[in-house]
């Protein structure tokens, strides 16, 4: 760990004023402190933002708004989340462990870094950590890596479960910087690795996530997050599916489908959504729609199973929703 300075600003304005080159915001610390100890992240100034007033879960103008500093555990249990958006609550509850969910924040969750083992090991090359140094994952260990959105420079999975659910729900992040405030669709917030895997999102230097909002979607009550993993709990996804269904009289009127564990960013599946629209709520129709889930996939040596597992994960989520009264 490299020595760094520490400050705990009390207001957003103060935080933004202190932010600069080599600074990092500290929220729950469950990603940042880990990576600082590993010397994967080496901030010179740590700005503890946990005193900022970026809290609250509320519905405003029909949209659900969640403060960036809300804890994962609290959000998962919040009545404005658990009832209307089961997919969000389930994605959160299937993340990490209770101890981590008690510490970790929503903003931090969206900015967590990949779990690629080479990224986390400073003895290894890694284009994301040291641009241009190479990507050992492409020929090395890559069972957990992405099959969608990869490039010849990087195939790291975006690990957040919550982000997958939020992308399915068309959520936006709200940002603040010294230049003012702006909002970005979460789906556009994350960048593909291309030739610059070190650039992961649209955040500008010093910019803060202040909140996340989810537009109203009445039928999101019928939504779920299916997470497939080797271990029953406390593990990242091999594959996951965030699905919401507007189902009436045995027919799918509209659907939202996004996938995790497979993409270099949370992966919305519009082709699957389109194929589901108007389809009967039956397994064969679900299979036909899910067949498109892994279109364009580029599997690596150890994750050749992921396209098939992804298709099945989507079918499973659809069946679970169709089975709900």
């Amino acid at each position, binding site marked *: *760990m*490299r*020595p760094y300075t520490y400050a705990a600003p009390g207001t957003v304005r103060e935080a933004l004023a202190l932010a600069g080159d080599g600074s990092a915001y500290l929220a729950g610390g469950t990603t940042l402190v880990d990576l600082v100890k590993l*010397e994967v992240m080496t901030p010179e100034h740590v700005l503890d933002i946990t005193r900022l007033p970026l809290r609250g879960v509320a519905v405003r103008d029909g949209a659900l708004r969640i403060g960036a500093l809300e804890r994962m555990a609290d959000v998962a249990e919040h009545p404005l989340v658990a009832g209307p958006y089961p997919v969000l609550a389930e994605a959160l509850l299937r993340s990490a462990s209770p101890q981590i969910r008690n510490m970790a924040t929503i903003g931090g969750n969206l900015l967590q870094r990949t*779990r690629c*083992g080479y990224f986390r090991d*400073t*003895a*290894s090359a890694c284009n994301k950590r040291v641009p241009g140094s190479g990507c050992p994952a492409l*020929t*090395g*260990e890559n069972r*957990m890596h992405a099959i969608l959105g990869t490039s010849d420079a990087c195939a790291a999975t975006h690990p957040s479960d919550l982000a997958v659910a939020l992308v399915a729900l068309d959520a936006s992040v709200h940002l603040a910087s010294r230049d003012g405030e702006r909002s970005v669709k979460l789906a556009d917030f994350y960048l593909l690795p291309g030739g610059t895997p070190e650039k992961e999102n649209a955040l500008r230097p010093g910019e803060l996530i202040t909140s996340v909002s989810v537009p109203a979607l009445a039928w999101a009550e019928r939504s779920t997050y*299916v997470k*497939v*993993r*080797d*271990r*029953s*709990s*406390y*593990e990242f996804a*091999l*594959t996951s599916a965030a699905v919401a269904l507007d189902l009436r009289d045995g027919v799918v009127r509209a659907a939202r489908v996004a996938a995790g564990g497979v993409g270099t960013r949370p992966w919305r599946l519009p082709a699957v959504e389109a194929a589901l629209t108007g389809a009967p709520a039956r397994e064969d129709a679900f299979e036909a729609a899910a067949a498109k889930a892994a279109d364009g996939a580029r599997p690596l040596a150890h994750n050749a*199973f992921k396209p*098939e*597992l992804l298709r*099945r*994960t989507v*079918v*499973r989520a659809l*069946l679970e929703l169709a089975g709900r009264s």
Partner: protein
Amino acid sequence: MTRTSLGAPLDRVDGRAKVTGAARYAADNNPAGLAHGYFVLSTIAKGTIRSIDAARASAAPGVLAVYSHANPLRLLPPRSYIAQFIGEPQRAMQDAVVRHYGQIVAMVVAETFEQARDAAALVTVEYDAQPPAADFLAGVPGARDPQTPFGHPVTILADGVPDIDAALAASEVTHTAVYTQPPEHHNPMEPHSAVAMWDGGKLTIHSGSQGPALHALDLAEGLGVPQEDVHVIGPYVGGGFGGKATSWSPTLLAAAAARALRRPVKVVTTREQLFTVTGHRTASHLTVTLGARRDGTLTAVKNLAVTTFEIENPASPPTAAYKCPNLDLRLKVVDLDIPRRTIMRAPGYAAGTFGLECAMDELAHELGLDPIELRMRNYATASPDKGLPYASKHLDECYRVGAERFGWSRRKAEPRSVTDGQWLVGMGMATCVLPSSQHAGAARVRFRANGTVEVACNTADLGTGAMTVLAMAGADRLGLPVGRIRPALGDSTLPVAAEGDSFMGAVGSAATSTILSAVHDAAGEAITALIAHAVSDARSPFHGMDAQDVRYSSGVLEGGGRRAGFGELLTTTGTPGVEAVTTATLGEDTERYAFITSGAHFCEVRVHRLTGEARLSRVTCVVDAGTIVNGKTARGQIAGGVVMSAGQALLEGAYVEPATGRIANANFADYLVPVNADIPAVDVHFLDHPDTRYNPQGARGLGELTGTGVAAAIANAIYNATGTRVRDLPITPDKLLS
């Protein structure tokens, strides 16, 4: 003898200390002037160190020294055969050669842990690298014969049978398949750690180990000091599983650095470092061929195991499992540039029973027999290799009772017949076996004037409950409540047997039976000594009596109308204590009998029909281990073994990169072990048939037993649920997507 406590499900005597944090593990010791060591590990697997630049690290805040082969802490190579074979023949930092990825190449010692760690990141090492051999499966075809006294082939042929292939050719049916598993790591909760301090030429070191005496010997050899100048203290050990049976460089380097710096040094290896700076369980590749008659009678078993370690022989379980006239069991070894291998819970048997017990399930299916029926048709009442009858074996009862408790009769033989919603449900079973071992251990029993008795044995409590068993053994033999016994273990100065392997401590599931016989004998002699003191000390009320006229019962001496508790007696005579130290004579009749611990596992799994996750939903284990000394801690051992084996079956495995020799998942995020959500309630049932030909208390060991068979029971249940047979562990969802 009065049976006061043996068999009772007693709480651990140290349970409160452990859950309140009062128990002091090695790293909890913080003597004044403590410095902290942190290791720099190699980032190549094979080659030599061209240069080490320690200048920046040496100049970093708080740094006291940076050691490496260029500025060495001299350690002598180990001489004991145990360290040679199951430990490190080569101590770290003694030369410029890199033998595996993650080898210790430098050690930074600083005032604080953080300073040492941060400075370690400033050490730069340059290598002349060579391509390593790190691909186990690629090495399997060219594997060599073993070179040590271990792993000799076992060949037993019936009269007139020229070789095993002839026996197989003459069999009505044969089944052959390959069963593989990746390397496994012990991952004890407590990493290897040590706090070392010197006083003149004498070393005191707090360090958890499975055998404090062996640990002291290893340290003395490495440091070039007499063994009596090394005092190892480790009453609490946070898990060993074989990984702390011998001593590893981190501990030796802590002691050497403390000597060089003339101040106490603490070393705590990190979770990540543990994967490479200590030993692990070898990968294995086991080809099992069974020959049988159509009625299921086994006619031949041929096993060819390939590992990276001569001491773990997965070919060996047929020497203890079934009656069979022809056996051919062989081991071959692949040499790789990877971290050291060592013994791990149920060495050889863990991987070996996975293969054998899956093969038996497959044979049963082929023959249309119930898996229990197939096993009963090959029931061994004598040990298959030595031909000696088992003194006490009730495995048949384990099958019967287990089937009953588990509801085995509800199992459908046809795979994929039972579903529960989207989940396929299956049942599987397997035998678990482990030949029994015990050592002629030494013990010291000391009556003390304060009315308590110290019962001491040179072994360790790895979390098993050995300290409690030690107290119970003393209480039982002396007729005292457990509360009046002061158990002592985990200290190299406690008595060791002059001969034999008892100085190895808690290995081979031998601790309990070793403790029982040692304490039994020492307590008997302590009573004799107490009586001798009573009749010879002038201040004693029994003074001048004939020793034969004084009787001991439940802590009280009686004779000639006089009566005194031992505390009262010793207070009266002004004697702090009276003790005896003895080495037990083993009562077991190994010339005429064989001894075995066995049991039956039953598992139910659920496998998602679409996404293939296999989840354990029910487990029953019925165990025949002779007398159960403490039902509670014994249950902990059995259930704990099930958890570990569930990891073996479904989750665990190090991934060694073939090209680099780097372990890609050397951390707890990527090397998965079971969490609570993976483990259902485990139904453990013990038969209680004392094996009194083994020792007077009739207790055999059981610590490693559920390291055997469980993985096969799970794999067999998964086959029953899905119709997919997976022979390559761990059984992850991707393998069940058919």
